[in-house]
């Protein structure tokens, strides 16, 4: 767990990790121009960052994902394992939704793009140091979709172990939600007979004998399209 900021009078001690020296230097000057911030070090690769984080004990790490030797995700894992108390804000040129989810899972407190404004960067750092997460307002809905997509694909990969089709997985989820066959038919825009056919296949594949057992099996084996 990250430590709280020292006191309101102490500057926020920032460690910068980026493989582009010009960018690092520019960022250092930018950060130090703002009252309440202090740059305690710059690292050009993942290994250097880990050493400096242990040594300098910064409050916050601005972490680029694309770095030589150890990339940002690997660094996040190492930071968590080393129990470095700094909070990490991923500062990157580009990132996709699944990477955002992964970074947060690995302990990052936020993600901000290099194209952001200076004010937004300072806002994000203050937000993270106040104990909140920073994703960026415009990307929150994307992130929720990404989280759902990850949860769905995890359920999907588990379903493959039992040879279930996506439609069968969907029907199992609706059974767990308490839908009857006619309701499932309406919901999926298929006939009730088709629902019964799917249910019969699901029963055979999972070796269950009724709706109750199907629901219990699905919950136990995490076969539903669930929130992660």
């Amino acid at each position, binding site marked *: 767990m990250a430590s709280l900021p020292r006191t309101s009078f102490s500057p926020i001690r920032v460690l910068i990790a980026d493989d582009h020296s010009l960018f690092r230097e520019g960022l250092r000057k930018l950060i130090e121009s703002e009252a309440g911030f202090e740059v305690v070090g710059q690292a050009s690769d993942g290994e250097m960052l880990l050493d400096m984080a242990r040594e300098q004990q910064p409050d916050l790490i601005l972490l680029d994902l694309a770095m030589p030797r150890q990339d940002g995700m690997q660094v996040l894992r190492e930071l968590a394992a080393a129990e470095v108390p700094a909070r990490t804000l991923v500062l990157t040129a580009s990132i996709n939704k699944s990477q955002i989810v992964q970074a947060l899972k690995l302990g990052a407190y936020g993600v901000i793009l290099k194209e952001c404004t200076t004010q937004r960067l300072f806002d994000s750092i203050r937000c993270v140091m106040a104990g909140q997460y920073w994703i960026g307002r415009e990307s929150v809905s994307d992130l929720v979709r990404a989280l759902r997509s990850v949860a769905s694909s995890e359920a999907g990969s588990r379903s493959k172990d039992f040879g279930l089709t996506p439609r069968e997985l969907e029907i199992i989820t609706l059974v767990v*939600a308490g839908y009857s066959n006619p309701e499932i038919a309406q919901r999926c825009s298929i006939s009730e007979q088709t629902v019964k056919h799917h249910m019969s296949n699901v029963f055979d594949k999972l070796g269950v004998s009724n*709706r109750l*057992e199907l629901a219990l*099996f*699905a919950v*136990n084996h995490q076969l*539903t399209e*669930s929130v992660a």
Partner: protein
Amino acid sequence: METTLTANEGQVGVPRARRYGIGTSIRYRVGGANGWREGTLQNISITGVLLCTDQPLEIDTTIEMRFVLPVELLNGESAAEVLCRGIVVRSAPPSGPEEETRVAAKIISSRFLRQPGRK
């Protein structure tokens, strides 16, 4: 957790229904009573449930039970509540001061009740 298929004691060759470890709270009431009491669902199969309660129940007592499937679904859906009717077949007193009564009940019937969505 789920147990493997085993034979019932004294009934070699008769497969025992798979039990599912669904550690969640369960409400129950003796048939006809008004108030629901709280217990913990230890495991459940298609034929019976094992729950922990703070009071013993007489064998052959008809009870109603209800519990919500412990999973959070996508798209604002809530998992169903399972309503069961059953008959107490075994009631073991607590084995220690911190323990609870363990009650086994045979399931007579069950149905699902949809829960309001989270949307």
